[in-house]
């Protein structure tokens, strides 16, 4: 049951071979046993989860169930959930019990899914290793010396270690795809604007996008069917006709034109990742896909552009944490100014403060044109590169990350090395394109490798189809960390 797909779980539930209460209890006891070491969850609340499970059982009994009713889901702690501690991985929100639901939470609640708990993450989603969390690092279940990736590291770990059947994540520069790759699971960041940002604590608003994390592409498709939808509470939410993302899963991929950006296959990628990716591409060749070399000449600028734009937007978004209305407040202060500066000095961790300082600097008087405006112009060049590339191909493939998971502590003192691990994912984020990562074997030390798939705008169904076909002929997505089962 721990390895069952959403479709299988749904069938077991609707045929009453298992109840949601039993299913939820099984995952809760697994969390209790394994979480003290893995640290994938910040908050678990058995009573709340079991209440939701019993409500789901009633929905099923009354014949009002959806394909997701009764199935547990782990929620990244960036999503506000009414009555749940919602910390965003920060001391600043370590006492914040959300008075309202994010739209993503509300949609899964309405479908009858059971919230299994809130997962660990880099503080305010700023990090690529889950080491900036106020609640401590998460371990990679494949190798507990390694990081799980970030910022959705807790969610990736929870799915990989089978502490939850599925989870949510959020992605600003790679925060769904990079941990999915490093933990050997599947994850998709949809086109910007498809998933509501309401109640998803803001980091860089022009880039932030929620998305699902799961074992397989098929599970991702079923979750997207519930997660995507127009929301009047989000000013950048897109109004589009409802789509069934599972509809084209089985379509043959023969004749598919896969673009391989020469810049992604150049220096920087380690040889173990390179051989895994070559092997994955060979599978696609067998399935009848063809390859075309494309070029993204400005992709080398993606990391510097990202590290101007994201901190700039973050410095503005995080100005709301002032110790006056909610969250942490310093114990001793002499004036309002003192209250602000001490609260923010004590409430934010080092990486978050560093990014606020970068963002404040690039937006400050006299520097705006040189940094922020220049980065926005380059963002257009990066998006244009993709537009041209998609004239020659249907979708783009490459590695999700340049290396497999590194060790916990290995890059803590070198933020630039950490930032450069976002090279492939941040390029697609800047253009607002959908991106996904699926397991594609193992590299050095038997740590997972992810295959990165970048689609054109709104081509999620096609990407899921292409990923699903690969998962029909390979079993990487079914493998589990050895010591667990």
């Amino acid at each position: 049951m721990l390895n069952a797909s959403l479709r299988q779980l749904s069938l077991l539930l609707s045929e009453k071979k298992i109840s949601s209460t039993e299913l939820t209890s099984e995952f809760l006891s697994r969390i209790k046993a394994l979480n003290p070491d893995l640290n994938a969850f910040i908050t678990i609340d058995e009573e709340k989860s079991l209440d939701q499970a019993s409500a789901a059982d009633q929905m099923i009994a009354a014949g009002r169930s959806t394909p997701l009713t009764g199935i547990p889901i782990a929620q990244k702690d960036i999503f506000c959930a009414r009555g749940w501690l919602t910390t965003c991985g920060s001391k600043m929100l370590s006492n914040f019990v959300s008075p309202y639901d994010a739209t993503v939470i509300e949609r899964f609640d309405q479908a009858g899914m059971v919230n299994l708990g809130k997962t660990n993450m880099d503080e305010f989603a700023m990090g690529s290793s889950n080491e900036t969390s106020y609640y401590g690092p998460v371990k990679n279940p494949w190798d507990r010396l390694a990081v799980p990736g970030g910022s959705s590291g807790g969610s990736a770990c929870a799915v990989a270690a089978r502490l939850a059947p599925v989870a949510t994540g959020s992605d600003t520069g790679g925060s769904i795809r990079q941990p999915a790759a490093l933990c050997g699971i599947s994850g998709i960041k949809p086109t910007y604007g498809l998933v509501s940002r309401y109640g998803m604590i803001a980091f860089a608003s022009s880039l932030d996008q929620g998305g699902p994390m799961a074992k397989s592409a098929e599970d991702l498709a079923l979750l997207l069917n519930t997660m995507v939808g127009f929301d009047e509470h989000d000013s950048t939410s897109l109004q589009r006709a409802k789509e069934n993302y599972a509809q084209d899963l089985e379509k043959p991929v023969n004749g598919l034109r896969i673009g391989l950006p020469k810049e992604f296959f150049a220096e920087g990628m380690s040889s173990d990742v390179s051989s895994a990716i070559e092997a994955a591409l060979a599978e696609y060749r067998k399935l009848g896909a063809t390859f075309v070399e494309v070029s993204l000449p400005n992709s080398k600028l993606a990391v510097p552009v990202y590290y101007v734009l994201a901190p700039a937007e973050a410095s503005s978004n995080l100005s709301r944490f002032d110790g006056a209305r909610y969250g942490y407040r310093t114990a001793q202060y002499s004036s309002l100014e003192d209250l602000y500066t001490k609260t923010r000095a004590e409430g934010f961790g080092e990486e978050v403060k560093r990014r606020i300082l970068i963002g404040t600097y690039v937006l400050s008087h006299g520097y705006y044109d040189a940094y922020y405006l220049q980065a926005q112009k380059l963002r257009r060049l990066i998006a244009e590169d993709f537009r041209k590339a998609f004239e020659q191909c249907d979708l783009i493939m490459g590695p999700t990350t340049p290396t497999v998971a590194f060790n916990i502590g290995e890059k803590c003192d070198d933020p630039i090395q950490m930032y450069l691990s976002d090279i492939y994912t941040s390029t697609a984020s800047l253009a607002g394109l959908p991106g996904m990562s699926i397991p594609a074997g193992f590299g050095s030390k038997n740590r997972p490798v992810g295959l990165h798939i970048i689609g054109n705008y709104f081509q999620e169904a096609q990407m899921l189809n292409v990923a699903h076909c690969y998962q029909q002929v390979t079993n990487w997505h079914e493998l589990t960390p050895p010591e667990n089962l």
Partner: protein
Amino acid sequence: MTLSLDDIRRVAKLARIEISETDAQQNLVRLSGIFDLIEQMRAVDTQGIKPMSHSQDMVQRLREDIVTESDQRVLFQSVAPQVEDGYYLVPKVIE
């Protein structure tokens, strides 16, 4: 580009983050490295290119000017550090 300790102190003040001398020193080293990376971006000629502020070409959506939210003051203030008579309490700013 060279950052100075004064730059770090000025930016920290603008960001309303108290910063110790040690923190300022450490940030100077770290941020200088990050700005060296960012410098690569400034060398590119971008004359005539329209800045891209958003990935979708969209305009701000408008809605009818009608009340859509109910009063939830008590609920929202239940998570505040300090309130009194429905107000958020902060140190006095006007003598």
